[in-house]
């Protein structure tokens, strides 16, 4: 039987989900509103939401205000004329109260999928990657106290006491000794699963501003959230480039600024090498997301297209190129890419003019269901 509190809690979660769905565009656009809480949880501020509270019943007759006294007679002590307080009332409207709710990334991905109408991804290939998992399914005589199996330990102690005649039914104390103690233990199980590798590439040349990088960070968060909900195992790699490319960690990816020129071919080369060395296409579902202002040095286009056409597009599930408009709006790479590979099924192009365009861009990237 479901308790009333559980029903209320479920109803509250539904209201929260509804509000998040309603404001999803805002959360997607302003990714900084969402705080990360550990690996699997996020904290989301929700405006204008009534927090559940106790409501008192009338308890039949009687109650406060039912006794002697005239109507309007003040109850509080010293109820004289109201006095002026210090200072004056504010003139600006209040910002409203924000309620922060915790939500799992999986739940967030589910809402995003529903709202953006994203198709479920159909993984390519077989589940040929073997993942090792620990399963607590055996018992040992030794182990840490935190893993002691109380029930088995008790039963063994009881059995020993009965067999040795120590147990007294009138005084049923069961005291385990060292040899009675039983501990939970694990076995390593090999579990085949379909895995995905996500490779982010970002142009960090002098023409990319911090604002453009923030757009990349926001978009990458939502892409990660969706892909993680679709695959059991996700490996993420980051490549930055100006005229030269290198693999970096996530923090460096978002906080590096170089002054070099833009050579996109360097990133494609690093990406192709990374895939060939670590993520063979026969075993992995491969996703590449590239972000740049598209201001590639003209003579580099041919080299870029060569690597993309020969070493990347034939093996990836999806190659997404997001062109983030620079203050100069001078990016021409997307147009060139469109002209060269526009009809390739694995290629998705998106022009991201500003933060408001992130929502549609994500929809475009993930809407293919590949």
């Amino acid at each position, binding site marked *: 039987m479901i308790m009333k509190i559980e029903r209320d809690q479920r109803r509250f979660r539904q209201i929260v989900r509804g509000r998040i769905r309603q404001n999803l565009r805002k959360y997607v656009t302003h990714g900084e509103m969402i705080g990360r809480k550990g690996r699997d949880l996020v904290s989301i501020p929700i405006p204008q939401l009534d927090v559940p509270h106790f409501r008192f019943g009338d308890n039949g007759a009687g109650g406060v205000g039912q006794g002697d006294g005239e109507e309007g007679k003040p109850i509080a002590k010293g109820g004289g004329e109201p006095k002026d307080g210090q200072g004056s009332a504010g003139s600006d409207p209040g910002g409203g109260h924000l309620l922060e709710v915790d939500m799992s990334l999986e739940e967030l991905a589910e809402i995003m999928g529903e709202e953006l109408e994203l198709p479920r991804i159909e993984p390519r290939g077989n589940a040929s990657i073997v993942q090792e998992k620990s399963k607590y399914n055996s018992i040992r005589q030794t182990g840490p106290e935190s893993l002691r199996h109380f029930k088995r330990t008790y039963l063994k102690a009881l059995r020993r006491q009965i067999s040795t005649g120590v147990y007294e039914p009138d005084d049923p104390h069961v005291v385990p000794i060292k040899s009675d103690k039983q501990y939970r233990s694990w076995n390593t199980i090999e579990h085949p699963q379909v895995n995905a590798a996500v490779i982010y590439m970002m142009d960090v*040349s*002098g*023409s990319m501003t911090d604002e453009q990088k923030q757009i990349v960070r926001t978009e990458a968060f939502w892409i990660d959230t969706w892909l993680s909900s679709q695959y059991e195992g996700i490996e993420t790699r980051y490549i930055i480039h*100006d*005229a*030269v490319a290198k693999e970096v960690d996530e923090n460096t990816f978002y906080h590096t600024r170089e*002054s*070099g*020129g*833009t*050579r996109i071919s360097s990133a494609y080369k690093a990406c192709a090498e990374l895939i060939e060395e670590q993520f063979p296409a026969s075993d992995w579902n491969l996703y590449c997301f590239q972000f740049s202002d598209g*201001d590639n*040095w003209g*003579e580099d286009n041919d080299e870029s297209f060569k690597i993309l056409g020969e070493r990347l597009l034939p093996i990836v599930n999806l190659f997404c190129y997001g062109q983030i408009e620079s*203050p*100069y*709006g*001078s990016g*021409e790479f997307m*147009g060139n890419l469109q002209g060269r590979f526009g009809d390739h099924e694995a290629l998705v192009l998106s022009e991201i003019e500003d933060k408001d365009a992130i929502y549609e861009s994500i929809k475009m990237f993930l809407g293919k269901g590949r």
Partner: protein
Amino acid sequence: MNLHQEFERELNSIGSGATTTLDVDAAPRHLYCDIVERNTLAISFNELRMTTSELASVDPEKLARIGKSLAEKLTYLMEPINPIEFDAQGCVVQLRSAPPQRDDDGRSYYELLVRGGGEISLRRYRKDNGDARRAIAATVTREVLLRLAGDFEAALDELTNRAVF
């Protein structure tokens, strides 16, 4: 007569009117200006370009120094220009208006390239909302055009002097 003086003489010799090209040579420097319109006060040009063999084998560090020097000198254009990208591999310094000029329909900016092969060139671009960028004519007074030519030369002179010392 140096390149700057020669350029001034050529510029004074042309009257008001339509398109013309100024091509001034004072070895090893060569100045080219593609003028699209001119009158007594102002000149509109597509490109102002100086080529020289002095930059033919210059190392990337010196090239970056020329870019910086030009950014410091060219403070009289509609927008200040700053080095944006420096491609050591291709030996090119790119300077642009920072920030570009914005209006309701788009933005415009100067782009100055210093190439290791031996070229300094200035162009103006416009990017209308929703369209690709295109080169447009830059309009400046005669004095500003002369000053630009002079500063291109001065930046090269600095490099030559540094090399001597």
